[in-house]
């Protein structure tokens, strides 16, 4: 068996990966435990939060199966809009999520788009992951939403923040009646 390659670069990469995994798992906890204000603090002020539509296309046109950024989407929000979404849930009269739903975020397959060994103050990196967002509400209403995420993370005052999130849901006709949850 080969000796582990524990160079400083390798150790730096492993440390950063653990930090990013912890960051995403904590984010999932904040959402599922409905700590939305704390969740908003994880987003940069200029975040772009985007969930494009998916289309039925030929293999030849496979690059068009995700709608472009100037086309329609499910979400295309800035931080002000995300804050309003949170505030809407917190009004207590947002019937689409009242009574509150039960939601679990499972985050997996986390990878760095570029292998790096450190992320300095102000630096950004793109990560990829898969998500399962499970929602159950009222009695038997259940949604099971699966897809990929591409997140741009940035280090601000020593902590990770999300600067851009692209959510690629694996559904064309949305099988959930609405999207009251965050991804």
């Amino acid at each position, binding site marked *: 068996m080969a000796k582990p390659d524990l160079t400083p670069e390798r150790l730096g990469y492993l440390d950063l990966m653990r930090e990013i995994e912890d960051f995403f798992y904590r984010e999932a906890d904040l959402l599922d435990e409905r700590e939305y204000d704390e969740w908003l603090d994880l987003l940069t002020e200029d975040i772009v939060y985007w969930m494009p539509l998916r289309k039925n296309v030929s293999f030849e046109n496979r690059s068009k199966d995700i709608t472009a950024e100037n*086309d329609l989407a499910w979400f*295309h929000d800035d931080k002000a809009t995300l804050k309003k979404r949170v505030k809407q849930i917190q009004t207590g009269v947002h019937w*689409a999520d009242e009574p509150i739903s039960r939601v679990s975020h499972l985050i997996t397959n986390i990878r760095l788009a570029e292998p790096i060994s450190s992320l300095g103050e102000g630096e950004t990196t793109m990560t990829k992951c898969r998500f399962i967002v499970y929602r159950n509400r009222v009695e038997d209403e259940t949604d099971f939403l699966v897809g990929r995420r591409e997140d741009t993370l940035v280090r601000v005052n020593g902590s990770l923040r999300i600067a851009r999130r692209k959510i690629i849901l694996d559904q064309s006709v949305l099988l959930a*009646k609405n999207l009251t949850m965050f991804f």
Partner: protein
Amino acid sequence: MRSRSSSAHNLVDTANGEISREIFVNEEIYEQEKERIFTRAWLYVGHESQIRKNGDYFVSKMGEESVILTRDFAGKVHVFLNSCAHRGMKVCRYDEGNTRAFRCPYHAWTYKTDGTLIGVQDYESAYQPPFDKSEWGLVEVAQLANYMGTIWATWDKDAPPFEDYLGEAKFAFDHGLCAWDGGDGGTELLGSVQKWKVPCNWKFIAENFSGDWLHGVSHRSVDMVRLGPSGEVGRRDDFGQLVVTAYPEGHGILYSVYPNKETRIEYATSAVTSEYYQRCWERRLKNRGELAGTCPLVGTIFPNMSFHAQQPRTLLVSHPTGANETEMWRTYFVDSEAPEEVKQFLRDYYMRYSGPAGMTEQDDMENWNYAHAASSGTIARRRPYHYKAGLGRGGAHAVIPGVVTEDPITSEQNPRYFYKRWAEYMDTGSWDELLDARKIRA
């Protein structure tokens, strides 16, 4: 088993404003709706901006069935059933694109974009004597119409021309689907279609958008967070006085009348958009004169096409997929000549307003879902729905055609006219009778 003749009228009592829950939850009634409404009425299929070039196609639906909207190589627009004449496979399985022909993936029967069958596997050897390919093209709709860019079709050759079908509700399209300045610049779709499934009968949705101004509490949360595009109050900018209007063809429109003398500030959170809209308003005053401030806010064209003409501007089709489920297809439209920055701002506002993630529309789906579910029970079905708001009030308006109720506009006359028309389709065999029935008031 329900008998077919005059049974729907027993379920729809518009004179007293009581309508049976059966028409929303009963599977047999739904099966009859497919035949008696969705094969006869004019249905919205798509927009001409989706098929600009010869060979462009867009796969749409009419009722439950998949159809192809396409422009052939002579530039003519067609709507075909998306089902191979040979064994029924969908001949087009992409949402949109451009093609010279539709080739069935099952046995390779191939059709031109004008629907003619041009290719059959082993045609020379397998068919003795050869069959006449001209009789085996794609099934085409009986009539098609393009009204201000919106494309409509019906399977019924006896249906009246589309403009007669619209009746006086044509006024709403003329003032609502035009460029915002009221000129000839036209409108176009803002790209793709949002499609999503909602567990409710399609009529909940059609009725809601026909002008139900009583459901304000549904949207209280979005008013509280001030979604409005000027950031100040509510979820929209000031649109003036409301006027609710119904049409004997089953259409229902909620208009707003904005005073012509006043400047009109909209979209104040985007300087570019706000300035564009102010310029449009000045031109609208010139182009439309007295009628400048008269514009539909929301409406439903019978049976299942709804639209918003102001904030947001959107077209919706509520395609039934069963008695208990509907597939909503929502598109958004803008002035073709609007600057790109304005289109982008509007697109983002429209999406946070409408669609399944729209902060307004999310709550509608919740209500339709659970209103439907709680109406399905044996005891629940015995109790009719209550549609008595504004009974006996409808009158006339100086400018806006139709049966009009205003001040207060809390009237359910529009759903009453919608369901009156629904019952006429369900009980009436011929278009002559259907056209005659328009003379009777709800």
